[in-house]
């Protein structure tokens, strides 16, 4: 079953097109995981996360100044190349300025019938954020109703919430299996599992995760676990890189990425009364993107807990080149990890990564970790 996630990831566009044909439903592309998918699912819309393809490209140069991150340019390139030509709508929830440009340029040059900018609050630590976001979700819900022609009832919202929560619970369970001394799944497999959840019908995805969990109970990886690593940083679906790291004598056992654990970590705690408030609370409470992690730094205790609970021996910090929000967090995260005895390796990601050069650095890092084990 676990192979299914890679198949979905590789054939994401074909899947969405078939889904559309089969259901007659609408597909919405979103640029950031602060988008409240619960409301889209309540309207029977398929939300798919727009990601890059990790191929060199030159189509975005006239649209986005080269000092912005390669990920936002790679995303826009997919649109300009017509790879998401099946989308009925696009949206973004306010997060970083970089990905916002992919969204605005997409809106200007690849028009779709529905486009929405959700002004997700940045000051999520303020008590003012909850009522504000709740009201914005009401506006968003109305916009979705108008677009789809479907009235979203409380029952629809309950269904949307439960579909998302089930997927989140199952992904947490799958991540929990990696706490074992010999994790039954690799970091690469976990990445395919988590990222594919962002582009596949959630119920279908959850069914396969559920089946996979049964398989994981008795599964053993062919390669030894080696050093247990956490990967931390911005968007990351660079499977080639992850595969290389795990082939050098390590296993990635957990992550703090918006393509990974940050996407599914916490649930909507709905008491069946004020559903939009419950949804708003979930997005305010979720493990934060650095753009929203102030005035207090909540990411650091969260990352330290991950490192402890998954018993990691080292951390690789992966940052999209030019990603200001992560650049602003990385020095203190590295310092905190290292002061706690967890060595770190910092690498910058681009649309394509220099796997050969990175391999040399990863091998040196792992050798250092192994020496620490030895002595």
């Amino acid at each position, binding site marked *: 079953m676990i192979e299914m996630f890679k198949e979905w990831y590789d054939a994401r566009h074909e899947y969405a097109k078939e889904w559309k044909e089969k259901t007659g439903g609408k597909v919405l592309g979103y640029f950031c995981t602060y988008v409240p998918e619960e409301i889209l699912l309540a309207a029977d819309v398929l939300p798919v996360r727009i990601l890059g393809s990790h191929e060199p490209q030159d189509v975005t*140069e*006239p*649209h*986005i*100044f080269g*000092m*912005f991150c390669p990920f936002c340019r790679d995303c826009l390139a997919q649109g300009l190349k017509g790879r998401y030509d099946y989308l009925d709508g696009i949206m973004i929830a*306010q997060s*970083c*300025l*970089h990905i*916002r*440009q992919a969204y*605005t*340029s997409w*809106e*200007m040059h690849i028009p779709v019938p529905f486009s929405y*900018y959700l*002004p997700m*609050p*940045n*000051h999520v630590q*303020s*008590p*003012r*954020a909850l*009522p*504000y976001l709740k*009201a*914005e979700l009401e506006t968003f819900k109305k916009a979705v109703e108008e677009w789809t022609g479907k009235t979203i009832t409380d029952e629809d919202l309950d269904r949307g919430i439960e579909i998302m929560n089930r997927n989140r619970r199952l992904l947490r369970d799958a991540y929990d299996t990696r706490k074992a001394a010999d994790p039954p799944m690799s970091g690469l497999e976990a990445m395919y599992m988590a990222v594919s959840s962002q582009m596949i019908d959630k119920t279908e995805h959850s069914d396969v995760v559920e089946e996979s969990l049964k398989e994981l109970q008795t599964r053993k990886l062919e390669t030894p676990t080696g050093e247990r690593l956490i990967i931390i940083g911005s968007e990351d679906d660079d499977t080639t890189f992850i595969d290389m790291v795990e082939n050098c004598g390590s296993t990635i056992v957990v992550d703090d990425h918006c393509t990974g654990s940050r996407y599914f970590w916490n649930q909507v705690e709905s008491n069946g009364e004020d559903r939009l408030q419950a949804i708003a609370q979930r997005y305010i409470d979720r493990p934060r993107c*650095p*753009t929203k992690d*102030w*005035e207090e*730094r909540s990411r650091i205790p969260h990352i330290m807990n991950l490192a402890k609970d998954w018993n990691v021996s080292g951390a690789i910090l992966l940052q999209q080149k*030019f990603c*200001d*929000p992560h*650049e*602003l*967090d*990385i*020095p*203190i995260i*590295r*310092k905190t990890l290292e002061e706690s005895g967890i060595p770190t390796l910092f690498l910058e990601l681009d649309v394509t990564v220099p796997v050969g050069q990175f391999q040399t650095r990863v091998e040196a890092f792992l050798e250092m970790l192994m020496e620490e084990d030895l002595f």
Partner: protein
Amino acid sequence: MAEDKYPTEPLKCWEEAKQLRFKYYEDYKNANETGGLRWAGGAWSFDAVPYGLGDDVYPLTGEPYGASTAFDKEFSKKCLEAAEAAGYARDLCSYMRNYWGSILLNKFTFGGPFPKPDFIWQDHICCSHAKWYQVASELEGGVPSFVVDVGVGTFDEMNDNKVQYVAGQLLDGIDWLVETTGRTYDDNKLIEAVKSEFRLTSTWAKICELNKAVPAPLDEKSMYSLYVFGVLSKAKKEYADFMDKLLAEVQDRVDRGIAAIANERTRVMSDTQPPWGFLKVFRYLEKFGCVSIGSLYTFGLTGLWEDKEDGSWGAKTTPMEKGVTINTREKAIEELVKWNLAKPEWQHFYHPQLKSDMMVRIAKEWKLDGVMLHYNRGCEGLSLGIAENRLALQAAGYPVLVFEGNMGDEREFDEAGTMGKMDTFMETLGVI
């Protein structure tokens, strides 16, 4: 060198502006000696609010400080290298790195050790705003901080929910200021400061409007030294009074046909912060009779604008001019929020088309022949969408010069290459 066509003369209030700027940094530096308070924050922070703590509360806004530091290339380089040595990426905001570097080196650009603020009072619309002062606080061993999120969307989509979100944070911020400083809060001082801000930011727009005249009474290089009061402390009464004086003087220049540059032959605007260490670029253009009349940056970073009945873009009518009564803390905060959310330079954080529309409008109404876009590697916020702006300006029929650089990191500015591009641009505009 193009021949002189118009009379010109220096600005009479230039020296006063210089003294006011000097005093700003001196006041901040010396505040604690006389029992006053120092606070640090961004140029867009709601500086009217801390004025409610008393007349002896002095701000240091980070962006102008970063720009002033950049002007001293040697010191700036040391600051940038210190920030990099501390682990901060070279492509981060260069103002921020100049500021952090000053803390790390414990050297104030205006002399002496870097003065530690008593509290931080910041706003947040760019990814770096809150994080700038989060790191600054850590580097200074912990400074109490309060940040107000203003990222609620464009002004044309404003609603009560959005206004109340920002206003609510500011009201919480007042409680926080009282708790943090142990001072009482004077709502009358807040109201006075809010009114000063309305006055200053509207007056600056009126001054910029006067630059529609041919010849332009002001050139952009000079404007940088004048608009700055709106980013040092836009709510300071003394600065609002100065703006009134400046408006009268610029109006007089227009009435008498006094030009900023005597040989004006062609008019352009720039965009984003300039490379502060290389302002001579503007003087170089003057050789060809080219005047930069300003930019959306110089007009709208501080100035507040609105559509006028005749269809033109002009200074925003203040709440006082509209007869709005401001007599409570809550009302002052609400009006302050509505006023700030209309700021032109906040609009394009949400969509480049909004900026393109404003730029094309300036190009038409200020009678421009071309546009120079500074692809500024030092500021992700104001470079946001700049490539789309270029396409829109070209589509509107304006020749566009693009040059790359960095407002606060001279290592990223190719002086010779840029001057070469300027020559070509002048050829395009037909002045060579």
